């Protein structure tokens, strides 16, 4: 019964992964300008000396961990704040808070690109009107601001995910636990810190693991907002692999980057699941 699934996945996933390993040892040009030849670890050596690879690795780490951390905290606060809002009003508020998540990534990207516009963008207009800035800022065209700006967009799109999972986990805390904490006069912040947070630990770990993986792989938002620019300031590994493979047509080199990245991701996932299992 598992045969159809295993068969299909062997072809569309298993085979490509093995093929990537093979490609990563070759000098393979997609356009066939130069004949394909075996270069062994050549691509991997090249990678070590490629400053753009290291930049995109650092960008990936910052983009992923930065946005996940902020979104997780925001989602947690939202879940705690809305916890006791019951009835119709609560349901409507919760549904509305989830809305950003139902917006397709590419749309999110273009929407924020429009709002980030230097001239006539909504964000600059609000900041100017409130007196926080004196001149409009060109958010996406400035190397130091582009990555944070894309991260804010990402956080906007991702927070509902944490909110949803953590609200569900909060609702799942057994009543007896809360009752006995109340008898011990735990209140407000101390109730949150000592009783609720420990219960949310696994939900937080699982949801951030899922989002970390999703963000490692995020292509749509970055590509549609900045295409990795200006310069390489928002180039993450996905964008870099894509550019190497389909703009430089060096499939071999792109595959080597992909393999390194795959190993990093798996190592990370294993470590994470270990941490989860310990408790």
């Amino acid at each position, binding site marked *: 019964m598992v045969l159809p699934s295993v068969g299909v996945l062997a072809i569309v996933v298993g085979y490509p992964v093995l093929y990537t390993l093979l490609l990563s040892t070759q000098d393979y040009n997609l356009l066939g300008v130069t004949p394909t030849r075996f270069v062994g670890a050549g691509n991997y050596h090249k990678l070590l000396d490629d400053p753009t690879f290291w930049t995109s690795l650092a960008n990936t780490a910052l983009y992923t961990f930065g946005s996940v951390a902020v979104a997780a905290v925001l989602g947690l606060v939202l879940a705690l704040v809305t916890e006791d809002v019951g009835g119709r009003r609560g349901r409507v508020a919760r549904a509305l808070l989830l809305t950003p998540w*139902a917006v397709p990534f590419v749309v999110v990207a273009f929407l924020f690109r429009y709002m980030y516009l230097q001239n006539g963008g909504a964000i600059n207009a609000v900041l100017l009107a409130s007196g926080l800035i004196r001149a409009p800022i060109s958010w996406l065209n400035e190397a130091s601001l582009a990555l944070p700006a894309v991260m804010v967009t990402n956080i906007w799109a991702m927070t509902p995910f944490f909110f949803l999972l953590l609200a569900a986990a909060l609702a799942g805390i057994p009543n007896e636990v809360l009752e006995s904490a109340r008898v011990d006069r735990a209140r407000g912040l101390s109730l949150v810190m000592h009783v609720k947070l420990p219960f949310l630990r696994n939900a937080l770990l699982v949801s951030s693991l899922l989002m970390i993986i999703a963000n490692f792989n995020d292509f749509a938002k970055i590509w549609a907002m900045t295409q990795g620019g200006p310069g390489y300031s928002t180039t993450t590994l996905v964008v870099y692999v894509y550019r190497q493979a389909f703009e430089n047509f060096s499939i071999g080199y792109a595959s080597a980057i992909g393999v390194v990245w795959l190993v990093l991701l798996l190592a990370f996932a294993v470590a994470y699941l270990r941490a989860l299992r310990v408790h």
Partner: protein
Amino acid sequence: MVAARRVDGRFGTRVAARAAQVAAIALALFWSLAPVYWMVATSFKTELEAASLAPTLWPHAPTFANYRGLWSGSLPFLSFFTNTLVTCLATAIVAVIIATPAAYALSRARFRLRAPIGYAMLVFRMLPLVVLLAPLYLLLLHARLLDTHAGLVVGFTTFGLPFAVWMLKSFIDAVPIEVEEAARIDGYRRWQILLKVVVPLILPGLLTTATFVFMEAWNNLIYPLTFITTLEKQTLPAALVLTFTGQFKTDWGGMMAAATLTTLPLMIAFFAVQRSMVRGLTSGAVAGA
């Protein structure tokens, strides 16, 4: 006297806490909804108003011109829409059909490869799509599926199928085994049990899973961008990216109209499965725990 003041103090903090709570929720609602409002509002503005240097809070001269322009414009917007709908629906259906027997076997049968196959599905779900990109491109090229919708569906399957297997497994796990034992005593075979007993019981689960796969495919940009080379065959997300530099360069109203229409199906799908979402999202993630 002292006691009364203490009660008063607590009443005061409670009011303050309540006010802070309301303010926090209001702020969160503004943060979540303002961009969506901005998208819809802009889609009803004239081209001039949408590009105005002093943005207007609401469309001063509301117009449907942007939406009409999508239909009558030079770009086959309707084809983009149907392309996306067809490929995403096909992916959802194919993934669920292939995944159901696998999920059933992983949930119920005891066989030696069960654990490794289960873990493999989980790892597949975590694979960076871009790693598969080049080999898949070459695979589709050799199979003459490049630039076809069938090829795109094959691509979407790489993430849709493992996801569907895990999610369906969690739904089947919840079906009491006694139901199946009764059917077995009645002389049903394994396939019959799956199709006639289990599938009807997990119908909501099948729908939720299909919707999830549909949404993931709808969100995907990198596969259509790479595997589809003819603009007429393109999906909405990729078409938005590809045409933005052309037709929509300064036409933000048209862009936002297209964006609104791209969002609508996903929004509907999202709120349809919102209630069973938590299970879907975490299924498989805690398999090792």
